[in-house]
């Protein structure tokens, strides 16, 4: 059985390269009064982002594509990614937005594929991460029980 001593250790083990400092900040905001804060925020993120990506899909399928609406969705998606510290996904969204402003449909479609891929990887990694957390007993929190 592992005993994690610091949040940084957990972070680097499970999520290196995909999440940035902002995720660490979320962990810092979690305490006894809000013990599931991080997972709650992450859940909201995936609910938000899935909806936005469905909207983006629709906007791209329109003939001609509605780049103005697309930009609004991307702004939201990028903002949400930034709020949970999903650095890679945020950057992909930024690239996507540039193609959007140029009204470059092909560039948009390629970018969107990348964003979707990042999104899927992130979801998997975070699911694994929360599962891992449930299996260990952190030294500083005596209330969590192991299996």
């Amino acid at each position, binding site marked *: 059985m592992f005993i994690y001593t610091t949040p940084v250790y957990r972070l680097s083990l499970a999520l290196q390269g995909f999440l940035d400092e902002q995720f660490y900040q979320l962990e*810092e905001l979690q305490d006894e009064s809000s013990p599931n804060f991080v997972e709650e925020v992450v859940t909201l*993120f995936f609910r938000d982002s899935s909806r936005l990506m469905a909207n983006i899909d629709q906007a791209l399928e329109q003939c001609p594509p509605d780049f103005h609406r697309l930009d609004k969705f991307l*702004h939201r998606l990028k*903002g949400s990614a930034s*709020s949970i510290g999903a650095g890679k996904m945020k950057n992909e969204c930024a690239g996507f937005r540039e193609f959007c402003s140029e009204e470059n449909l092909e560039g948009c479609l390629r970018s969107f594929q990348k964003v979707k891929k990042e999104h899927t990887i992130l979801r998997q990694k975070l699911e694994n991460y929360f599962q891992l957390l449930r299996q260990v007993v952190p030294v500083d929190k005596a209330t969590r029980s192991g299996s």
Partner: protein
Amino acid sequence: MAVDAEAQFHVLAVDDSLMDRKLIERLLKTSSSFQVTTVDSGSKALEVLGLKEEDQTSTSALSPQHNEIEVNLVITDYCMPGMTGYDLLKKIKESSSLKDIPVVIMSSENVPSRINRCLEGGAEEFFLKPVQLSDMRRLGPHILKGKHKEQQQLHQEENSNTNHTIMGSSNNNNMSNKRKVMDEEILSDRTRLGFSSSSLNLI
């Protein structure tokens, strides 16, 4: 929930994103044990502030005997459908009853012209998202300043009454001395310690 001196300040947070509302609420409560109300639009914010004379449903457990919720600071997202954060700012600043409430604007986009426009429109601060715990420390002085202005206005109204007030006219000099002391306290760092000891525990 314990009600202590630190929980006396009430912040109204406005953001159309549920995720960001959750985040800002947590930041506010963690940094300084503020009372927090969150709403998802500028028009709802105005309702809470009492600009529209309607029955409002409070979004958090507040003291039920007040018809109007007293808000000490408004923190709002800039980009919102319908009424933007800037529109909300202007409405607050143009209202005689609300103009002294400090307003802070948040945005995920770093656009200097937007930032200037907001500051010139009366916003106290402009935070870039994602908002950090360290940003929360910047709120204290604005809230205190707002409270101070509010008290000044109240005292002016009381003094202009010819009726007998609790204070009494001989206290005029005392009030101006007190104001001076409060000003100095606002400027000094010791205010932060008095305002919230939990802010010392920030990273």
